[in-house]
């Protein structure tokens, strides 16, 4: 069963540009100039139910833009996208209740004075989670993520914030998870803990995951399949082993050893 369908996806936007200096600044008051930035160009792929796919590429390649389109934050310029059969940017409530988008750069939004428990309780209300289900999932998450429910969000460290961000996303058991750099800024131990948690979660719930990361260990330990994107274009889509074989033997060995290490 296909959960994510992306067909000929394109995203471009106009960015204002001008030369340096006062003359150019005054000129731009009368006539503004723009340049078109092509963030995504004819990107197509599909993701099946329960797949964990690594979405990799250099900075500015279009990974986060794709994630934002798939979760419904951005409206693409062209192409067709369906996630769980829905058009994401229509942001219909039933669709939003089935997906989660966790960003390593902003893992926890909303009120920072609240405690972790208050924030989770708010999620329960928002996502209409029945109390017994909430209690059960919370017990699991608390064990796996070592949550301190009485702490205020503003007082949490980066690693703790990421764990809370994951807990807030998973408390309503979404079917599709978009994880954008979930281990960014974390130390080795915390990053490994997050990776282990994601792997456990996928194994027990069968959730579909699309994961971006600059850390090789993240994608190699979690994903059998990789999608490589570069300058907005799809450069590779296939098994991890094949991509590593295409790279130099040294790099392939390195990737494999990192993968083993994480296991």
């Amino acid at each position: 069963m296909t959960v994510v369908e992306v067909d000929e996806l394109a995203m471009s936007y106009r960015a204002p540009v001008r030369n340096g200096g006062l003359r150019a600044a005054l000129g731009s008051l009368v006539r503004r100039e723009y340049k078109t930035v092509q963030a995504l160009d004819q990107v197509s792929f599909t993701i099946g139910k329960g797949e964990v796919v690594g979405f990799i590429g250099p900075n500015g390649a279009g990974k986060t833009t794709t994630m934002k389109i798939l979760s419904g934050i951005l409206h693409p310029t062209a192409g067709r996208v369906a996630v769980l059969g829905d058009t994401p940017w229509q942001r219909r409530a039933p669709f939003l209740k089935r997906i989660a988008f966790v960003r390593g750069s902003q893992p926890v939004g909303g009120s920072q004075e609240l405690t972790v428990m208050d924030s989770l309780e708010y999620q329960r209300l928002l996502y209409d989670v029945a109390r017994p289900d909430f209690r059960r999932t919370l017990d699991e998450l608390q064990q796996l993520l070592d949550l301190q429910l009485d702490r205020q969000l503003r007082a949490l460290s980066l690693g703790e914030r990421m764990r809370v961000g994951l807990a807030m996303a998973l408390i309503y058991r979404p079917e599709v998870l978009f994880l954008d750099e979930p281990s960014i800024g974390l130390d080795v131990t915390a990053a490994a803990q997050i990776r282990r948690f994601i792997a456990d979660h996928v194994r027990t719930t069968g959730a579909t995951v699309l994961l971006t990361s600059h850390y090789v260990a993240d994608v190699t330990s979690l994903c059998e399949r990789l999608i490589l994107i570069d300058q907005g274009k799809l450069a590779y889509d296939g098994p991890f082993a094949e991509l590593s074989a295409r790279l130099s033997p040294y790099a392939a060995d390195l990737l494999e050893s990192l993968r083993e290490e994480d296991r």
Partner: protein
Amino acid sequence: MRTLSLLTFRIRQQVLEWSGAWWFLLTLVVQAVIAPLIGLFIWSAVYPDDPSITRYYVAIILVTLMTESFEQHTFSNRVYDGTLSHELLRPQPVVLGVIGENLAIRGWLTLLGAPIVLVTAIALHTTFAWQSVLLAIPGIALAAVLIFLFTFLLSLTAFWTDRVHPVVGFGSQLAFLFGGTAAPIGLLPDGWARIAEALPFYGMHGLPAEIASGKQYDGSLGYQLGWVAVLTIAAAAVWRAGIRRYTAVGS
């Protein structure tokens, strides 16, 4: 029912959030009461024997505290720093969160500003007829809705410009001038008074304050309701255009 519990939870969240910044809330209270206090001192010096002037301005102070809106700081900042995306992904209308924060801040301002209103009223020997105060309640509620809609509408310009504060500041100056804070509408020159009575600003401050201070109620809630409808339609249209732009460019 679900909307109500979400709104209640959001208000509770924001009351907690703002409780950590009570000193900042105090500065907002001072900022809110300064203009009406100046009006009070000037106009009660001009008409020293008219108790309705002091009554009117004490009511204006209270109405201002109960209806202040700061969406240019709350909502617009979320557009600027991109955290609006968190709200977009929640299965609830974004405006619900904006309203929740608005009501929480108003609650704090009313609570912290109440002693100022009380001290001013006692110092100036001002009394209110309870029937007039009761009659003013629907007018104050509509004034609160009007100010929220007006400020929210102007704050939505954050989707197009990063200079939302001057835009909202200009709107606030219009409200100060034509809303009955700079001078009671009845004391404005004839032409200005007629313009002021037609604009929405009178319904934001002057009208409910006049009713609370004892002016005969003349069914002017219809005028407030009319402006509520106009501003709701305008805010909804601008929201739709703005969110289309936000989701096209991103953050």
